[in-house]
């Protein structure tokens, strides 16, 4: 059992929680993830570590409420417990030798992009962040990004920041200056377009993959992605890969494998919710 120490809603559908797990907090580095299970009958879901507080022994994760599992996680309050928390898993993001970088975050992916931006800043790098959201109400962590980087914000509907997607400011930055690396973290479609945008500039581009996972230790093989024509396993070989070499279209398809099941589970869960509410 792992206790939830803190809970904060970042916007209507994105929640931050801090979970008590001192040893994971001690070990986790930017880019690594945890797998959690809310309760005994729960599903195992991977969530990237958004930060740690070693003093309080806390691991911070930020999640978007999209399915039955994230719904039940979202119903947990401070002091409640979750059944399992495993980690830190995956390899930390490689940041050695990077002096100047762009960190691109999309939607809830910003939660994962933030520790990368922070870490680069701590290492003394010149960091620019490009963070994109659907609309004004969805914007999260802007202050936190400002504290460690130069920030450009975009919204699809133009209700805040620049209108359009992250590729516009990204391209502008690449036109003007030279960077050592671009880190892209967000929806697969966004990362695919970031890779297309950076390609002509020949800048190292890293994408953080978040495929379906079960064990997270290299046993089940469901986290496989095709990189440079080869089969790789995100939980042990990644989750970061060279964005120019990832088969994003295949990955997008694979992430939809259980769509019908998820819709049904969500439905059931919502009905349960309603009943309890009566």
């Amino acid at each position, binding site marked *: 059992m792992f206790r939830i120490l803190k809970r904060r809603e970042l916007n209507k559908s994105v929640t931050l929680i801090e979970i008590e797990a001192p*040893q*994971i907090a001690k*070990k986790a580095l930017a880019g690594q993830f945890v797998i959690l*299970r809310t309760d005994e*009958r*729960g*599903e*195992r879901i991977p969530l990237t570590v958004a930060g740690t507080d070693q003093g309080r022994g806390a691991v911070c994760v930020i999640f978007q409420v999209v399915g*039955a*599992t994230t719904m039940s996680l979202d119903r947990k309050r401070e002091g409640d417990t979750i*059944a*399992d*928390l*495993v*980690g*830190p*898993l995956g390899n930390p993001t490689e940041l050695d030798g990077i002096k100047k970088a762009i960190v691109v975050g999309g939607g809830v992916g910003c939660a994962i992009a933030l520790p990368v931006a922070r870490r680069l800043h701590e290492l003394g790098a010149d960091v620019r962040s490009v963070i994109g959201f659907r609309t004004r109400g969805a914007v999260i962590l802007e202050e936190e990004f400002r504290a460690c980087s130069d920030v450009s914000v975009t919204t699809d509907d133009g209700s805040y920041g620049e209108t359009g997607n992250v590729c516009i400011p990204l391209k502008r930055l690449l036109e003007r200056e030279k960077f050592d690396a671009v880190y892209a973290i967000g929806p697969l479609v966004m990362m695919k377009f970031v890779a297309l945008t950076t390609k002509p500039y020949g800048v190292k581009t890293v994408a953080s993959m978040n495929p379906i996972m*079960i*064990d*997270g*230790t*290299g*046993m*089940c*093989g*469901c986290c*496989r*992605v*095709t990189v440079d024509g080869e*089969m790789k*396993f995100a939980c*042990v070989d990644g989750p970061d890969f060279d964005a120019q070499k990832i*088969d994003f279209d*295949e990955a997008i*398809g*694979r992430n*939809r*494998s*259980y769509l019908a*099941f*998820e819709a049904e*589970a969500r439905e059931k869960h919502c009905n349960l919710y309603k009943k309890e509410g009566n």
Partner: protein
Amino acid sequence: MDLRTTKYPMPVRDPLVRNRDFEEVSLGYDGETARHEAQRCLHCKAHPCVDGCPVSVMIPDFIAKIAEGDFEGAYRIIGESSSLPAVCGRVCPQERQCEKFCVRGVKGEPVGIGRLERFAADYHLSHSEKTDRPVSNGHRVAVVGSGPAGLACAGELAKRGYEVTVFEALHTAGGVLVYGIPEFRLPKEIVRREVEHLLGLGVKIEMDSVIGRLYTVEELKRELGFEAVFLGTGAGLPRFMGIKGENAKGVFSANEYLTRANLMKAYEADSATPIYRGKRVAVVGGGNVAMDAARTAKRLGAEKVFIVYRRSREELPARREEVEHAVEEEIELQLLTNPVEIVTDGDNNVVALECVRMELGEPDESGRRRPVVKEGSEFRIEADCVIMALGTSPNPLIKQTTAGLLTKPRGEIAADENGKTSLEGVFAGGDAVTGSATVILAMGAGKVAARAIDEFIAGKE
């Protein structure tokens, strides 16, 4: 002496009923049948069966006890050599081990040694009292992984008074016994009882603990103060064939498919874990894991399930009984057949498995006749789900995170016959060392390593 030339039949559930649920297929002998079967044993002086057993269980001795009606006595004899008899009685390939050498098998069927082992173990489980906790000798050992190797090693050490902590990556103890082997072949209740027995001996089990990440092997020794570490991390990543379409939607490794079903109980209505319920399922491979995946698919409602295997029926590596059970449950064997492509639709969903027929040519290094492609034999098996059960390659995690730990060319941990690795105080055994093998071999390796750890620690004093 009972002169019957065939084994007393094992009571099994109706194939067309059982292939729709997950309850155990074989029901086990009752006491009377067990005594009859035991009387078929000739008690040969040379006991060739014992030599066929990877852990040398004194088979004629335990069978004699069953014949006498001393079932606990039989269990005690098995327990001297085996740590998990209720499991091994169910999953060992007896026809290739003990029973292969049974003299009764020359004219007729061998003695049902596996069935008798299972009987004695089940009898013990349902009659035994709480185990006494041994007095601690004050020495601490870490065991990494709670599969057959880890459980056997932990049990053996605990009996010798060691304070053992087992670190398990998943949320349930048992390793492959809980995520891999299905309920209908090995009820999880049996694994749970074996684990409980260890807890009774004072063993601690830490779930959700991925060694290599949460703590490195080095940290287990240096920071947590364990005097020795046993690595029983099991086999690793599932293998694929490298053919087109393997990452399509509807293609799974057997490990993924079985883990969803077994560990996550995805077949139960209230489980939050999804599983793909294919209507026509093709399972590629011929081992126990392939049979398990095929029979699971059937139970999840598939209309047609195919086993696609490139050699002939004789060469199927699965236990004979599992093949028989699978066929009874209406699993179709497509033998001498090899997939060449997974065919997909425009949305990257599986629609068929393109195959070729094979014929057996000259023997290869393994002594088995090498299958060669029959020209022009291409055909398609329509399928909306393909499961790859082709074995595994070693897990890289411990290797990547443990400096100085030597591995074999293909990546398995290098260990000598006592489980000693290249690092002082670090031992290893089971699939992590041998690659995918059997439960009994892993269990045996765990036990042998426990003795080596005992000597290592005693030698330091």
